[in-house]
């Protein structure tokens, strides 16, 4: 159990790290935006905001948590020890049994009577809650970032539209200028009067300088549009990544919660039915010893048939709508398991082989 505690602590640290990394990246992308609005060059900022590091870390974290959830399986395996203990005799009881079978049986009965798994169940719920809280926090964090990035992205997309349309206007203007320049140049080549020539030359120079100005602006606008495009690309990848991480978190939460729900019911039912089975018949027998049994017992024997029939009928009634529901929820459980297995194939495999730390996750 303490091993699991250590693992939980470690995962918690990793979640914190992952969150700070995500926050850092988001803020970098954010600050790039505001810088861009001020008109400074953000190429450096964008290239710097590398996703690989974040990805690697969040993958590692998810893998760790998946392992943790499977580790909970190992913890719950401890329950089966309790169940076995209720069924069988301890060493001392066996030893006593050599001398007195009855005494040995009584000792076991006494042990069964005081057995309780309530504290273990509480522990299970507590641990599962801790992990679930961790995952939900992470999920919330992710969705906050996702919303922010999304909002940013839509704004940037409109910015880019504006930039592109400006660029196009400039291009159109440039194209419209071409025939004017050609016309002027044509006129200049046939003009011989110095005065008219000087006037035409001045006109052409003005036109050319405007053309150059426009061409230069085209370059600037083009660069701006390209930067915006790169920013959008980066943002989109980041958004995808956030979405993917969210999906992973949801799968993990789903798996954990389904499992815990089922386990609490299952272990409880098992321990109690064991307890009941081990004691019930004996109690009646003991009471019989004290009661004058002869004639009543015979009547009771005759009644057993009727009682059994009643019980069968009760059981059938209780299970009437069972089948429909069971099918539905079993399907859900299978789905949750499948999703989990798809994402964490490697870990499941390693867990099954019991081969932690022998390879990279």
């Amino acid at each position, binding site marked *: 159990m303490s091993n699991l505690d250590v693992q939980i602590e470690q995962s918690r640290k990793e979640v914190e790290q992952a969150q700070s990394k995500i926050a850092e990246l988001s803020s970098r992308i954010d600050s790039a935006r505001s810088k861009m609005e001020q008109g400074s060059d953000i190429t450096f900022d964008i290239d710097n905001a590398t996703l690989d590091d974040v990805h690697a870390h969040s993958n590692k974290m998810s893998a760790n948590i998946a392992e943790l959830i499977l580790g909970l399986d190992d913890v719950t395996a401890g329950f089966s020890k309790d169940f076995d203990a209720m069924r069988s005799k301890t060493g001392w009881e066996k030893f006593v049994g050599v001398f007195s079978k009855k005494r040995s049986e009584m000792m076991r009965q006494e042990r069964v009577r005081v057995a309780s798994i309530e504290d273990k169940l*509480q522990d299970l719920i507590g641990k599962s809650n801790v992990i679930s809280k961790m995952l939900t926090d992470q999920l919330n964090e992710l969705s906050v970032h996702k919303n922010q990035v999304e909002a940013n992205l839509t704004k940037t997309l409109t910015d880019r539209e504006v930039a592109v349309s400006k660029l196009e206007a400039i291009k159109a203007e440039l194209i419209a200028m071409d025939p004017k320049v050609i016309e002027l140049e044509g006129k200049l080549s046939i003009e011989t009067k110095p005065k008219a020539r000087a006037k035409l030359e001045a006109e052409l120079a003005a036109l050319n300088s405007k053309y150059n100005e426009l061409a230069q602006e085209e370059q600037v606008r083009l660069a701006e549009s390209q930067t915006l495009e790169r920013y959008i690309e980066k943002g989109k990848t980041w958004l995808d990544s956030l979405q993917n991480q969210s999906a992973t978190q949801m799968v993990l939460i789903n798996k954990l919660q389904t499992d815990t729900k089922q386990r609490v019911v299952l272990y409880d039912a098992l321990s109690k039915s064991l307890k009941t089975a081990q004691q019930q018949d004996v109690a009646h027998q003991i009471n019989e010893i004290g009661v004058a049994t002869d004639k009543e017992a015979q009547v009771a024997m005759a009644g057993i048939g009727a009682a059994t029939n009643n019980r069968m009928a009760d059981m059938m009634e209780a299970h009437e709508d069972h089948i429909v529901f069971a099918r539905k929820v079993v399907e859900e459980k299978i789905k949750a398991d499948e999703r989990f297995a798809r994402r964490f194939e490697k870990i499941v495999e390693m867990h099954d082989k019991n081969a932690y730390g022998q390879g990279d996750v």
Partner: protein
Amino acid sequence: MDLTYTHAVLDSAAETRRYFAKFERIIAHLEAVAEISMDEKLITTMEVKMLKGYLRALSNTFTGLSYKYLMADRVKLQSGDQFSIDKTESGFPVFREIMQMSVDMTQANKHLKSLPSPARLKKDMVNHILTEKTAPSQLQFAMSQRIYYEYLDKKDLFLTQNDPEVIWVGMDVKDVRRSYLIHWAVYDSQTNLPVIYFMELEDTASRALPNDERRWPRVQAHLMAQSVSSLKLLTIAQGFDNDFDTLHPKMVRRFHLGPMHSHAFTQQHGPIRDVLAEASGEAGLDWALAWTVESLVSESIRKEKVGIFKTAEREVYHLDKLDFQMADSGASDISRALILPHRAYQVLNEKHKSEFADVRKYVVGTNAKILSY
């Protein structure tokens, strides 16, 4: 196989609120019923006092749960964090909910330290409403959690295990025989119902049981571990009698509260289903809460050798051998009762009278006055 198939998730705020409002009303009615039973001398004054204590604790637990889930659907929690009830043969919250509450309770202080104060939350809410012009769901949720943990910290709650308490009843000086009444309660995980136990006990040891640190903690642990509804009273009493040579359980009584049937929330079989289906229509008048009281009384004692020189008394309990079902049930007496609103009772009396002939019926009138039939 799935084991939670009978659990239903209540996922809308209106539904959850209606559910808790219904339960609060029913529990209030139950206290009145307990008083009627006392007037009829079915149970003793002391039992009524204890029963009322547990009912109040139960009511607190429900209030706590209602705070916890008040805003849960607004913030779109995962389905695992939503409120589930057992919809067949119980109608009460599932065992896990109550256990979760025990876990929460141990951490209430930690949460209270980390959550912002109500005053600050309210200020934040006002700011949120004025600046963003939307409902401050997240803050409302935080507030509901704050109230929930404050509540857990302050109130007596009905938890999964409510440890035994002992009341001194009297002493036979000549025989050095003290009498006690022990009471305890559990939230049964198999049936998802609250179960209350009483035990009348005679003590022949020289030291009084509550002051005897050798026996009392063991007694408590034993009784809690044996409080399983699938165990018959006879089994519980026999086991206790055997494990403690100086303690003699003379009478054991067990109250199963529930199931709660409601046309809106639960699925039921048999005549009760028809009754509720016909009575439904107006909200708040389509429910019925059943409860069962099992009693086991000792009729004689026998001596049994324990060790070489000592003998111990062992109880022989009264079981009705002629009635097969009763003999099999491991109790001297089982009585069932049902509390339901007047409208449902009318339907019941007109159409299904024979099916409920052996059930004591308590009917809630329009002015919340309770009549018994």
